[in-house]
């Protein structure tokens, strides 16, 4: 069964690499969905000696939230904010890919050097989890559109839950469901926020969200909606 875990780990690594170079938002969202589905399958493959009802319920909910609901929410937010592509990212796609490959190498080297996870499901899984987290953080920092940052957060969260699954951590039904619910509501609220940003600023470039700061006078009248001066 361990072979399956390795296959899924590698597949997840590939999704990371694709995500970091994809410029079309719809494309990115689809790959996040694929990542969610792979992650949902992972716990089922890990427990060879049969699994209980609780695990099955969790797996089904996990798959449906991460594979279907969250991507749908993101697509809806994308349509409402009327964006299609991530133009002019801060870090170009080639550079991003090279950076991520370097990060992957560092993660694998780090885990090997410190022999970090003797208890893990497979030797490849923990470094892949770290790589996924790094990918998420990198996308949050290096991309311009606010919606891409939401996608980055999802990838980051996927990395964390992959770490949890691979280290065979079990937190109980309530905690797992709570975490899922939180992520779901977060993406929902972010969708609303994106819509509002688009309406107030008529774009969703997060680097231009800089009207609040410590150096200038606050707008003469706080009631003034004109932030960009």
């Amino acid at each position: 069964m361990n072979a399956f875990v390795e296959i899924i780990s590698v597949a997840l690594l590939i999704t990371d690499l694709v995500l970091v170079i994809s410029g079309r938002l719809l494309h990115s969202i689809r790959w996040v969905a694929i990542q969610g589905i792979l992650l949902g399958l992972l716990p089922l493959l890990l427990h060879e000696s049969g699994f209980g009802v609780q695990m099955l319920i969790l797996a089904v909910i996990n798959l449906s939230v991460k594979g279907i609901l969250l991507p749908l929410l993101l697509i809806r937010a994308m349509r409402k904010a009327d964006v299609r592509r991530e133009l002019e990212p801060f870090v170009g796609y080639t550079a991003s890919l090279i950076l991520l490959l370097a990060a992957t190498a560092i993660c694998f080297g780090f885990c090997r050097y410190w022999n970090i996870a003797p208890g893990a499901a497979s030797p490849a899984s923990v470094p892949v989890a770290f790589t996924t987290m790094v990918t998420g953080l990198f996308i949050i920092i290096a991309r311009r559109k606010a919606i891409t940052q939401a996608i980055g957060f999802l990838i980051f969260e996927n990395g964390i839950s992959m770490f949890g699954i691979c280290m065979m951590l079990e937190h109980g039904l309530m905690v797992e469901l709570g975490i899922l619910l939180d992520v779901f509501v977060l993406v929902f609220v972010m969708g609303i926020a994106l819509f509002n940003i688009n309406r107030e600023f008529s774009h969703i470039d997060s680097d231009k969200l800089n009207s609040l700061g410590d150096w200038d006078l606050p707008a003469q009248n706080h009631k003034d909606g004109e932030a960009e001066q």
Partner: protein
Amino acid sequence: MIAILIVLLPLISAGIIYLMGKHLKFGRFLFLFTAVCHSICSVYLLLNPEAALSKWDIGKTTLLGFDPISALFLLITSLLFILVAIQTHFWLPAELAAEPEHAAAHGHTAAGFQKESVFRSCLLAFLAMMTLVTAARNLGILWVALEATTLVSAPLICFRRSAGSVEAMWKYLLICSVGIAMALFGTMLLDVAASSGGHSPGLNFDKLLLTRSTFHTGWFKAAFIFAIAGYGAKMGLAPFHTWLPDAHSEAPGTVSALLSGSLLNCSFLALMRFYALAPETLRPFCKNLMIAGGLFSLGIAAFFILRQNDFKRMLAYSSVEHMGLAAILWAIGCDQGAIFHVCGHSLIKMTLFLIAGNILLAYGTRAIPTIGGMFKDMPKTACFWLIGILFICGMPPSPLFVTEYLLVREAGPLLSTAVLLLLFVVFGGMTKVCLSMLMGHTGSSAPLPEPTKNAERLNLIPLVALIAVTCCGIMWLILLNNGEI
């Protein structure tokens, strides 16, 4: 049983208010009624340790329960909420009425507001989630609840729809969520550290506390670093504090009061839980990390307060400062002092934010240089503002004087010198701002007559809170004098 009741009560009320959106009067009544019930429950919990100790379990895992510290934090949250609820009751109509006047005076179109029912139900849901944070006995549930506080309070920040508030909301959502996700990773690392001995004790706080000497030190170090980054972000420890000034300055005064007064305490509680789990050998490591975070927060706050143009941002940085002080107090082993400090800070900061809301109501601007002569234009608010600022700077009989004295007494000479120096800078910055707003002649933005009259009437709650704070402070001074602290 009472633990689950006290969480569900505001949550259910929030749902009802949201669904009955059209019935505003009913919503207002239910809002106040829930606040009162919640505080009765929390007083009962504090007075009856047996009831507080009763746990709520699912299967073998204990999920909810209270200990003396969390019961005290719950009481503070509840008390703050009831004061804020009363203030909201009177402030909201005044704010809605003032908007067109300000718009007319400054020549732009009036901004839209969120629906009142949504605002009130978000406030109640916020209360429910903070209660859940204090009640959680499972670190996983603690994380879930703390993340949920971010989600339900984000809509509160953009109550008044403007570009600034939407930006603040986005930053709040993103920075806090990424930060808190770090804490989730920290929680998982803690689980790994705990289960390195063989079997996993799960994430139950009490069980972890019993087995903490067997933790794997390397994993725990990593866990604590991520926890301090994650929960520190939520608590406002520099350098993870960047959401705080934006959110606090854009949110309406009553919401800032809750964010600053209760939410920061709840995040501090989460960090305290992690600290309590540190094995003895790792205590110095955790202590140094917290002291470094605290000192850095103090430094950042002092620097930004000195050259601040926005009085609500100034208060936000002052929160960063006080959370830093609390972290230092906790790290040097002065537990009582840290808890006193956050409680005193909550009350005073709530008062200040409510007063700031009143000033904003009258002047329609947060720019400090354009405000002047408040003693003449709104004398009551001006007096309370002055007293509040002096109290937050630790002027006796402020309770913060006692705790800051404790800090200087307990910390080593080097640390206390640094803290005192930074406190002095903060004091200078804040009083300078305060005096320039209070004295002299009316500045370039004159207060509008009708909103000013309304704002002057909104001073009951600040008055009550200031009296309570003074009593607290005098009591603690007496305790200190008798050598009981």
